[in-house]
C-alpha cells in the first residue's frame, strides 16, 4: 500500500468507516512505515485536542425573543400569519390573475386599440387622389405641406 493511500484511510479509520479488509491492509502498512505512524499519531492528537473547544454557556431561553421577532414580521407582512396552504393558494391566484391580465393586454395591444390612430396625412390623401398608389408608399406627414399639412396650425 502506498503512503498516499494509507493517509486517506487514516481518516476513514478515525471515523469508523474502514472495512475490515482495508483495516488489515492499513495496519500492515503502519507496522512498517514510521512516517505514516507519525501522521496517524498527529491526526489522533489533533482530533482529541479538538474536544477542548468550548460549547459556550449553553442554550439561552430565547423563546420570548423569537416570538417577538415573529410578531414584528407578521405585523409588517400580515400574510405571514396565513397557513402555508393558504399562502400557496393566494400566490397561485395572483399568478393566474397576472397571466390573464397579460393575455388581455396583449390581445388589446395586438388589435391596435392602444396604438396611436394612424389616419392618413393630407399629403397622402392628395397624392393618392392625384397619382394613385406610389411604389415607395405614402409620404411622411409634413414633408410636402409642413405642419399645416396634417391639421396643425403653423
Amino acid at each position, binding site marked *: 500500500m502506498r503512503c498516499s493511500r494509507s493517509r486517506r484511510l487514516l481518516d476513514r479509520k478515525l471515523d469508523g468507516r474502514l472495512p475490515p479488509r482495508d483495516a488489515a491492509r492499513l495496519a500492515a502498512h503502519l507496522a512498517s512505515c514510521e512516517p505514516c505512524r507519525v501522521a496517524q499519531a498527529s491526526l489522533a492528537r489533533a482530533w482529541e485536542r479538538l474536544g477542548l473547544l468550548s460549547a459556550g454557556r*449553553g442554550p439561552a431561553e430565547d423563546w420570548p425573543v423569537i416570538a417577538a421577532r415573529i410578531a414584528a414580521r407578521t405585523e409588517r407582512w400580515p400574510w405571514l400569519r396565513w397557513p402555508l396552504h393558504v399562502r400557496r393558494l393566494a400566490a397561485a391566484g395572483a399568478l393566474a390573475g397576472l397571466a390573464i391580465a397579460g393575455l388581455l393586454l396583449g390581445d388589446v395591444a395586438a388589435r391596435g386599440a392602444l396604438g396611436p390612430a394612424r389616419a392618413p396625412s393630407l399629403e397622402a390623401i392628395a397624392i393618392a387622389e392625384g397619382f394613385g398608389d406610389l411604389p415607395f408608399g405614402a409620404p411622411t406627414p409634413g414633408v410636402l405641406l409642413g405642419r399645416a399639412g396634417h391639421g396643425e396650425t403653423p
Partner: protein
Amino acid sequence: MSPPSDPAAEVRLAERVAGGDRAALRELYLLHREAAQRVAFRYLGDEAEARDVVQDVFVTLLTQPAAFSPKARFSTWLWRVVANRCLNRRAKAGFRGGARDAGDAALLEVQGDPGGSPDAALLRAEEEARVRAAVDALPGRQRMAILLSRFEELSYEEIASALETSVSSVESLLFRARRALAEALAEP
C-alpha cells in the same frame, strides 16, 4: 451529541408549524436549541452571534415554512439552515469570531470546578484558545464539516446534506481540515 428524538413526530410538528402553530414551533425549539446553539457557537466563537443564528433559524421555520420539506428529516433541514446561516455570517465583511468568548467560557467552566487549581485553569484556557485559533483559521466549509463530524457525530451523508454537497466532497473537506488542525496543534 444531539438528544434522541422521534423523526416522525418532528415532521408532524414541522407540519403544524407550516399551519402557523407557534406552540409546535416552541416544541421544536426546545428540542433542538441546545444542539443548534452548540454548533453555531463553536463555529462563530461568539455567544451573541450564535444566539442570533438560532433565533433566525426558528423564525424562518415559521415565516418561511415552505423552506422545509416534510419528506426530509427535520434534523437534516436544521443542520442545513444552521450551516448556511453560520457560513453567511462568516462571509460578511469585517466579521471576526470572538476568541474572547471561547476563552471566557473555558475559564468559567474551570472556575466552576472547586477542585481545579488556578494553574490548571490557566493552562486549559491557553490550550482552548490555541484550539479556537486553529479552528478559526479553517476555511468556512472545512470548519463546519469538522464540527459536525467531531461534535455532532453526523455521518458523511448527513454532513453532505447539511452542506449541500457530495459525500466525496465531505471526505475531501475533512481530510484537509484534519491536516490543517494537526499542523496547527502540533507540539511546539
